[in-house]
């Protein structure tokens, strides 16, 4: 049995977290993500989970890293300035392979920017915010129901690949209210489980892997005692900085994700079957793009929308295929031009790529998007 609710995007994320079995949230208030923290402060104790408002954004990341090591599914939520603060520990979570989900409800930046206005300006930061060669996953919902679904998916991916997953929302999606159908009872929802060791503790090597390239992760206190470090380490988990160890560790962290792009990368195609032109848009910007595509179709233009749901890793295969199919691609994003750089790189000049960048605090209307499409595709 299910119920129909009118929920805010942030609230749908909270429902997704509860449904996913999240039992620990460490966070800090920051507009426009604060509703996630406030709602979990209320709901987590009811399901026996723990909520803590830490002293700052960095401490929040630290707390969820610690909690994840005890076997819990964990979450934090923030926006641009907080996301900037978290970067060092995001790199730590990549290096030590710690499952966790970071909700970033993007707002206008840089710096304090416009706390209550939407933006998609953290796209590149989500990929490269922390130093060094590292790889992670970022997902972007474009509706309130998708906030719920992608939160569940974020945990499925994070636990499966032992990697931080960023739920990259924007203020449009975070704060809008929309109809969502939720199960009455979350008990039926399959829970993501991280891999546990099959060997006894004496034989256990913390970062040894099978062909999946993902190490087993026994919780602290379970009888397997292991060492977690941000130093480059070998399969024992202890620091090892030789060229061979560094090469092996780096390659494995890359390959564990990039050998599985078919599993990780999701793109939605709307009206693409016979499309001769495509608009690429995601998150809050995709909503206007759907309608602009309908407007274009009504005028006989064969336009479709390619909507990346997985922002990182980049949908390389899909964008290359797109360049072989359509005559022109328009990328629409709520920033000065970030995702377009990847599209241009993948397309490699095969077809023209036009950018409709909207960075004046407001999302574009369907009419605006349509006007830009008409101009680009004529």
């Amino acid at each position: 049995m299910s119920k129909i609710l009118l929920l805010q995007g942030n609230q749908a994320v909270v429902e997704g977290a509860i449904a996913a079995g999240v039992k620990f949230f460490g966070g800090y208030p920051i507009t426009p993500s604060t509703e996630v923290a406030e709602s979990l402060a209320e709901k987590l104790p009811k399901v026996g989970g723990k909520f803590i408002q830490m002293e700052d954004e960095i401490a929040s990341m630290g707390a969820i890293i610690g909690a994840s090591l005890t076997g819990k599914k964990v979450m934090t939520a923030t926006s641009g300035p907080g996301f900037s603060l978290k970067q060092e520990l995001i790199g730590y979570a990549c290096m030590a392979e710690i499952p966790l989900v970071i909700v970033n409800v993007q707002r206008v930046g840089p710096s304090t920017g416009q706390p209550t206005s939407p933006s998609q300006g953290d796209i590149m930061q989500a990929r490269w915010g922390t130093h060094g060669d590292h790889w992670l996953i970022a997902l972007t919902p474009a509706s309130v129901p998708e906030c719920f679904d992608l939160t569940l998916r974020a945990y499925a991916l994070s636990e499966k690949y032992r990697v931080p997953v960023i739920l990259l929302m924007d203020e449009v999606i975070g704060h809008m209210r929309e109809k969502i159908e939720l199960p009455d009872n979350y008990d039926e929802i399959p829970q993501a489980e991280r891999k546990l060791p099959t060997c006894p503790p004496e034989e256990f090597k913390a970062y040894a892997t099978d062909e999946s390239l993902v190490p087993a992760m026994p919780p602290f206190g379970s009888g397997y005692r292991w060492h977690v470090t941000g130093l480059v380490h070998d399969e024992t988990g202890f620091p090892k900085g030789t060229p061979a160890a560094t090469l092996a560790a780096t390659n494995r962290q890359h390959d564990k994700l990039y050998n599985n792009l078919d599993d990780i990368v999701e793109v939605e195609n709307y009206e693409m079957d016979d499309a001769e032109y495509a608009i690429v848009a995601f998150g809050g910007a995709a909503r206007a793009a759907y309608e602009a595509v309908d407007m274009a179709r009504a005028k006989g233009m064969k336009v479709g929308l390619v909507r990346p749901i997985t922002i990182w890793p980049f949908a390389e295969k899909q964008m290359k295929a797109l360049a072989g199919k359509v005559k022109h691609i328009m990328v629409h994003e709520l920033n000065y031009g970030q995702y377009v750089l990847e599209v241009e790189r993948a397309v490699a000049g095969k077809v023209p790529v036009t950018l409709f960048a909207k960075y004046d605090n407001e999302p574009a209307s369907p009419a605006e998007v349509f006007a830009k499409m008409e101009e680009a595709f004529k």
Partner: protein
Amino acid sequence: MNMEEMIDKYFRPGRLPHIWCPGCGNGIVTGCIVKAVAKLDLPKDNVAVVSGIGCSSRASGYLDFNTVHSAHGRALPVATGVKLADPNLNVIVVTGDGDATAIGGNHLIHAARRNIDMTVVLYNNSIYGMTGGQYSPLTPEHAKAATAPYGTIERSFDIAELVKAAGATFVARATTFHAPMLADLIAQGIEHKGFSLIEAVTACPISFGRQNKMGGPADMIKWQRDHALPLAAFEKLSEEQKAGKFPIGVLYKAEGVKEYTEAYDELIAAAQGGK
């Protein structure tokens, strides 16, 4: 249990020798942590050691517990996450003077304020040893350091006063000269249900000692002997006599302050009861 037996039981096989310099006091402090664990007979599976970054923070890798070598200054929030998520674990935090009071200062005062049950062993060698001897917030005023070639012009913290004011409910200090006391204070800190901080005054002959002409490792341990006084004796001194000296032993203990994870379990019970 003698030291050899303790090493066999509590240090990870194949990870020694450690990286600390000859004459470094960190081995003594780490040995005292192990003695405390042995004295209390804590099950190894139940002990989590969380360290930051620095010479002292390397201790976690050598110890056969659930260990985390986290980021610079961030041992306390990581330890908070570990302890709050699983209050059954005995959480020991290994940190240094720079790690805990400079970059980690904010986290130190909040962990103390929460009175979360963990035992912080702060290895104070008054210097940033790992990076080559720069000064820290616990480097004495006028001391020389790699980033204070003319001597520091900053006063240092009194860490015991700082964490006491922030809300710590067990505060103690000892030196590597007073190793048996240090081990005993750490054991007391572990047994204390609340935020415990034990400052372990330890020598860095290579950086701090050399730059401040303090002699060799043995001289620096004798310095500890000559400048530390048990609290009761210290308090009897006049202000002039106190200059240059510091108290050791249990410096502060508060009973009956609600511990954080216990308070949160009560919160959960209330939230679920009111459903």
